[in-house]
């Protein structure tokens, strides 16, 4: 009843081509941003920020990256975990070689290194498709993961054999390292994610996004429209890996703070991100956020939420129950809506337009 485009007349093509053509959507986005930037830092505790919001944002960024590749361009990949690793190690090397440069610049710049590596491993995509491409990207996953362990230069010959995140200041406040508060890290991360989401939205709504989707839907016809397949696919690999790389750098510097770096970028991570994209909705930016929320927040919610309800279960049982529940929910959502949570969101909005009438 309140969510309707009735009365909102478009008199210019610019307003019709806006990403959010309906006023209520724009208000909704503003409210979400306000809550994200003001409400959550004020009301959410450190624990909430560290275990819920920061992982959610990091995974959202990685899911947007994979969604550009798999959802928009139709190229399946299982290398996103490794590309995140490239971003994390690139950021580590950059900030230890040039400590004077602001860490936020290095976090974003590390995406370019991931993009370059992504392009190299994207080269086979012109010739091979589908499951075979997955195997090719698995090569990237295994090779890069091997490099992270076997090339000590990458982790500066640390005794721990992993990234040790140094302390870096941002506007005089510690942003990385042991002294950084979750609120600072969260706000910077939210800024990065908001900015990059805006960029991604611009890309997929313009000429480049259309050419990606054309390649996905019918590559022969796309070539006939004058879209060169290899550059289009490589650009998708580059942009996708850029997002994954930035997500990896954020993960290491704004979330983990070092530690178990080798494990963070393994094949499980790639699978996790692929599941987020599939459950969230292929070819949808909002789906990336929904999928990331579903997969990254739900286990935490189950782990801490169930005991909070007064149901006392031993820790190990809770752990296993989480897996069972998560698996069951994934199957449930895929049966209810194979096109992912983004489609459910669309249907919900459609229903809301009619409400309170049935049709």
């Amino acid at each position: 009843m309140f969510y309707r485009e009735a009365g909102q007349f478009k008199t210019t093509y610019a307003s019709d081509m806006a990403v959010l053509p309906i006023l209520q959507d724009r208000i909704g986005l503003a409210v979400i941003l306000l809550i994200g930037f003001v409400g959550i830092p004020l009301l959410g505790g450190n624990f909430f920020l560290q275990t819920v919001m920061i992982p959610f944002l990091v995974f959202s960024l990685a899911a947007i990256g994979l969604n550009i590749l798999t959802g928009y361009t139709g190229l399946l990949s299982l290398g996103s975990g490794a590309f995140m690793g490239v971003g994390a190690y690139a950021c580590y090397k950059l900030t230890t070689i040039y400590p004077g440069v602001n860490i936020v610049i290095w976090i974003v710049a590390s995406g370019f290194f991931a993009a370059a590596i992504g392009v190299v491993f994207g080269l086979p995509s012109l010739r091979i498709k589908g499951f075979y491409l997955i195997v090719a990207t698995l090569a990237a996953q295994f090779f890069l993961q091997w490099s992270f362990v076997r090339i000590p230069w990458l982790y500066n010959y640390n005794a721990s054999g992993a990234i040790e995140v140094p302390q870096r200041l941002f506007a005089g406040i510690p942003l990385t390292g042991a002294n950084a508060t979750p609120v600072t890290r969260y706000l910077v991360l939210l800024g990065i994610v908001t900015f990059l989401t805006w960029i991604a939205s611009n890309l997929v709504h313009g000429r480049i996004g259309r050419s990606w989707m054309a390649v996905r839907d019918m590559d022969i016809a796309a070539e006939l429209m004058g879209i060169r397949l290899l550059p289009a696919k490589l650009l998708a690999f580059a942009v996708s890996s850029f997002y994954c790389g930035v997500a990896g750098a954020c993960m290491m510097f704004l979330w983990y703070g070092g530690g178990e770096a080798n494990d963070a970028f393994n094949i499980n991570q790639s699978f996790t991100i692929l599941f987020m994209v599939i459950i969230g909705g292929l070819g949808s930016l909002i789906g990336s956020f929904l999928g990331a929320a579903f997969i990254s927040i739900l286990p935490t919610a189950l782990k801490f939420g169930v005991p909070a309800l007064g149901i006392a279960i031993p820790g190990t049982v809770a752990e296993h129950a989480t897996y069972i529940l998560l698996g069951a929910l994934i199957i449930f959502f895929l049966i209810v809506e194979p096109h992912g949570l983004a489609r459910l969101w669309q249907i919900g909005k459609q229903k809301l337009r009619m409400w309170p009438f049935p049709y």
Partner: protein
Amino acid sequence: MSALAEMLQGEVARAAAETLLTVENVSLTFGGVRALSDISFDIRKGEIRAIIGPNGAGKTSMLNCINGFYHPRSGRITFKGKTRQRMRPYEAASQGIARTFQNVALFKGMTTLDNILTGRTLKMNRNFFWQLLRHGPAMREEIEHRIYCEDIIDFLEIEHIRKTPVGKLPYGLQKRVELGRALAMQPDLLLLDEPMAGMNLEEKEDMCRFILDVNRHFRTTIALIEHDMGVVMDISDRVVVLEYGHKIADGTPDEVKADQRVIDAYLGVSH
């Protein structure tokens, strides 16, 4: 009055005489199968040229050679005075050859408008960095092309399905959107592969009207493959007939209709 008519006629004749595309001795083989042997014909600027023949005659293979999907084993194809040996489809597209497919090849996940806008890809020049912003010059370019696409949408009378994903559209409309997408490329030569396959009479009549209007309104040269002889004979200026990869006739619809080999191979006799 008569002077004007004469002048117009002269104009038409001159335009007709100008050759847009020449196919010379083209042969195409797949392993041991000769799909096309020694085919030669030409397409003049501004005409509607039909390619007909029984199933498997090599009509679609011929179109595929023209727009670069297949590379002929031998022979030459000259388009706008430029002879080429091997060429990728996107090069053909950038030279001004557009095409529709026998089985609709739309981008199913995209809306009608996005499909047609994709046809403008080659005309869009703003680089990646402007695309990142989608403001200023990039947006102005989008709007400029949107206006062009709206003209096509208007012309094909598909305003009501502008924002519908094409996968959900009925077959007849999909064919029309595909024509729109090809038109958005502003082609010099438009190849239509069975534009009327699987349509009912009314849809066929609509499509005929669109094809004739495209030819006259946009002055687009059209080469089409079609099985409906009534349509072919009515709308085309010249017809080339293929059978088993050989050319068996070439001429105006009346000449072709009277040709004994064409009757034997394809048209048959009414009893």
